């Protein structure tokens, strides 16, 4: 033990600097390089302002994202829903809307949105249970998505193909709206509120 302690005392400042350098280097690899390699970006078909639309519609989120009669949820609205207000002529001045009118409304083509919250096929999620039954606000899981002026970059995992929002761990909420779509987030909320967290509640 004594000789071991003596050896430690012999470390020079250069040794410590080498340790700090190595630590910083590997931390950088972990926090920056790994996600850069693991996740790829996909562009949205065109930009969309939730903020602008929220100012135009009367019933908030429900104006476009609504329940069907059988209790299922429409999710991202279909082109038909957009066409209730939008015609083939743009309503505003933005170049984004021109793309929307020309490429999608005029051609009657569904918009291939990249969905941040799209879950893998083995996951069952019920909007009815959370919104209609538990009375949760949309923002509790989707964050301030409804107030944003721009769609943030969609990232997906190169290995699984799933959105970055829904798989992995929420270690540090670094960028953008809160990513509250991971299994740990679901499980934590269920546990905190005493809701059943058996596997079969959410997995199919």
């Amino acid at each position, binding site marked *: 033990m004594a000789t071991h302690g003596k050896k430690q005392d012999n470390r020079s400042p250069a040794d410590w600097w080498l340790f700090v350098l190595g630590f910083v280097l590997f931390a950088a690899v972990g926090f920056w390089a790994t996600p850069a390699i693991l996740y790829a970006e996909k562009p949205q078909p065109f930009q969309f302002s939730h903020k602008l639309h929220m100012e135009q519609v009367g019933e908030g989120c429900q104006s476009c994202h609504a329940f069907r009669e059988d209790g299922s949820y429409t999710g991202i609205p279909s082109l038909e829903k957009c066409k209730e207000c939008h015609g083939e002529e743009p309503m505003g001045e933005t170049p984004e809307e021109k793309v929307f009118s020309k490429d999608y409304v005029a051609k009657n083509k569904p918009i291939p949105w990249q969905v941040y919250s799209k879950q893998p096929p*083995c996951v069952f999620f019920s909007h009815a249970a959370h919104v209609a039954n538990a009375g949760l606000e949309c923002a509790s899981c989707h964050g301030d998505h409804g107030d944003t002026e721009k769609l943030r970059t969609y990232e997906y995992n190169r290995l699984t193909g799933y959105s970055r929002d829904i798989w992995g761990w929420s270690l540090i909420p670094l960028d953008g709206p809160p990513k509250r779509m991971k299994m740990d987030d679901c499980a934590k909320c269920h546990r905190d509120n005493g809701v059943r967290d058996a*596997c079969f509640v959410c*997995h199919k």
Partner: protein
Amino acid sequence: MSSSASEMRFGMVIDVDKCTGCGACSVACMSENNVGVLPDETDKIRSITWLRVYQIDNGQPYPNTQIAFFPRPCQHCAGSQGHHTPCVSVCPATATDRDPKTGIVSQIPTRCIGCRYCVAACPYHARYFNWYDVPWPEGMDKPLSPFVAPRMRGVVEKCTFCFHRYQRAQNKAFTSGEAMGEMDYQTACTEACPSGAITFGDLNNPEHKVHELKKSPYAFRLLERLHTDTAVYYVSAREWVRRQADNYLSGEKLAKVQAGGGH
């Protein structure tokens, strides 16, 4: 009886005397639950049928031969008198569990490690191992149901009483504010049966048909003496049919006391 402890207990009453053995239930089940077709479906050791129709006969020579058919879904055992659900108690990965709220035994293929203890433990051969990845032929993946996830090679799967239909019915109940009715949640096999041999509902709910049907003097369950306390009842007026539901000695009388997990 442990079943009375649960709020609901979904189960079936299958009238063996009405079953013609047509197999419509099996087909409906496969289609509903994305059970694939393997290159060699004649290999019955390795093919997958969540709801399999078994044929039995009375062993008499012609012209006294009689046959009967037993549609066999997962029996959703509760276990009585200190016994437990056979598959749940052996699963090392908690991939299968009995939900006390609905009485349904779940199976989570994404959690399954493929050890097949549950396959060995199940007295009803209701569990199936995926020996192969299902080769969905070109275009055949299009009619897959989005409500049930397809499974991969190396995991176990089984009947779930169409649990996704329960969740759909629950969604409707949440948004409409009305309680879930008996007909809101019915399994695919029940709907498909052309002779109405399968009745499905909450065994604990006096308003559901199964609650009354299971009390029939002709009602019995498979291998009741194992105390698995299954949720699937069968009904037959023919004694030789009832006799084959359990391992009776040749001279032994049919023991009605066994029904309901009694003595």
